């Protein structure tokens, strides 16, 4: 049985979340939380391995108590266990402290053979937490995996590097980060959703992690990077000309504009 861990994050629905450009804030309450879309691909990859060769799939999330909903969603999509890493002491963590906390939690749970992460989150957008977890746990990783070739004695994956495809083989333990190309995440059935609603979500607090981890590395105080300000740019000040109606005339105007911009040669 391959022991798989899938770290997931609850993020706001990016289609609906509101930004305040005057205050420079993100109104996280303006949109419902959901599993980071890239993490759904990670979870699906794990569940497919479970179906093919047998595996246990543990999902783990660091977040506020309401992130429990994301873990329940993960259970309904095929995960076996949901672990919420939750404590006020974890708040304000950057990727360094987040990856340390998650790596410590994974160690607390026992050995993982394969850790599967989404390539990045849609809110933080760093893509750093996966490779950082691998370094904390001293295991190799392959990022931007778009295809699983085989899982047996060895794991063989395809890593997309700006269009070049690298086929890479590794023994366990291994961490991979997956792109959206790897699969199409399944939708949970109604009965799976019901079952997940009643399932137990296990919790790990700072105290529990302190048995193997260093609490001075948790949360904001453990974070080497600090946010000094946030700007919500109002749309770049492009002047935006609209050409409507007569197509011929509009095309001429556009062509003239592109000639002025040096993008088209003047064709008199």
């Amino acid at each position, binding site marked *: 049985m391959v022991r798989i861990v899938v770290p997931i994050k609850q993020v706001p629905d990016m289609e609906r979340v509101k930004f305040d450009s005057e205050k420079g804030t993100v109104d996280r309450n303006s949109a419902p939380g959901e599993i980071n879309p890239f993490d759904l691909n990670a979870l699906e990859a794990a569940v497919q391995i479970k179906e093919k060769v047998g595996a246990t799939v543990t999902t783990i999330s660091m977040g506020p108590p309401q992130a429990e909903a994301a873990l329940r969603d993960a259970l309904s999509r095929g995960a076996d266990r949901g672990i919420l890493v939750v404590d006020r002491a974890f708040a304000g963590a950057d990727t360094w402290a987040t990856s340390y906390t998650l790596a410590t939690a994974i160690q607390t749970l026992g050995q993982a053979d394969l850790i599967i992460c989404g390539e990045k989150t849609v809110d933080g957008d760093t893509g750093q937490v996966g490779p950082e977890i691998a370094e904390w746990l001293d295991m190799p*990783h392959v990022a931007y995996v778009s295809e699983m070739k085989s899982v047996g004695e060895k794991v063989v994956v395809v890593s997309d590097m*700006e269009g070049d495809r690298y086929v*890479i083989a590794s*023994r366990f333990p291994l961490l991979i980060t997956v792109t959206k190309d790897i699969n199409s995440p399944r939708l949970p059935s109604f009965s799976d959703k019901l079952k997940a609603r009643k399932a137990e979500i296990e919790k790990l607090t700072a105290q529990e992690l302190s048995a193997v981890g260093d609490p001075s590395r948790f949360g904001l105080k453990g974070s080497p990077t600090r946010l000094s300000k946030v700007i919500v740019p109002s749309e770049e000040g492009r002047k935006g000309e609209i050409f409507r109606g007569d197509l011929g005339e509009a095309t001429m105007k556009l062509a003239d*504009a592109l000639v002025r911009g040096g993008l088209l040669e003047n064709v008199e």
Partner: protein
Amino acid sequence: MKGYKGVMIYAEQRSGRVHPVSYELLGKGREIADKLNTKLSSVLLGSQMEGEAEELIYYGADTVFLYDHLGFREFDLINYKRNIVRLVEEVRPEILLLGATHLGRSLGPRIAVALSTGLTADCIGLDIDEQNNLVQIRPAFSGNILAYIRTATRPQMATIRYRVMHKQERDPGRRGEVVRKDVELVDPLLLLVSRESSSGVNVADADVIVSGGRGLKKPEDFKILEGLAEVLGGVIGCSRPLVDDGWMGKEHQVGFSGNTVKPKLYVACGVSGSPQHLAGMRASDIIVAVNSDPSAPIFKIADYENCARTAAHSRRGLGYHQTGADRELSDG
């Protein structure tokens, strides 16, 4: 902070080719080093790359640390990390920059953890504040906000987005030092089985992109856009749904989960402009949007807009250019 001095950039290469982001990092790194009145160094891992090491000097480096090994021709995560970490511990730069390429974003986090220092991802701006700290500016929330970040530890590490910084003019008269370093190798743990190159289209590097979206009725409609792209000297891009539907290859995809592009001209035909798409192309110099829906979000960031039937309009644009000043075109 005491004991840390100088700026270091990681010069990325794959299969013996230096990634152009490395020269951009040297350009920005030179500017920062001059501001801090310090030296700019570069670290290059590869095989038989003496010539490229000299090039790094021509583009602004004072010192190039060269790790030359046959096994370094392709990316070796574990050994690249090991040797870079050892070098940084020896040289102790106050700033270490990598390109925010796939390779840089895979390697950088491991170096940061190994060095117990912070790392800021995918920066589009760097500045030095009054206390000589590095201010790192990066987009987040799919490009909807800009975060200003400082690092309390040293070195201050950041990955920098490609095609944002400017390289200096190449100066073959520039002098610097290439320092060959001993390579230390351990079991790489990852075995490279094979490598396939991409089909050749590179939207990330293109100056002109003509993009199609869900507004196109059928795959054949791309022929029209291809004609336009050819006339403009550009390449074809597309939004994610068309890749999902199998109309176009992933290498054409522009957006959050595809390629981030910054062309001089971006023509969006039938692209409504989801936040994910906008995140990948909003930095384009000029954006032209053609769409039949006046409320399409793409219009919020476009410079020139035309609410019309996509196909007709694109064809007209093409017709205009090919036939010269054919101002008699009737409306179709």
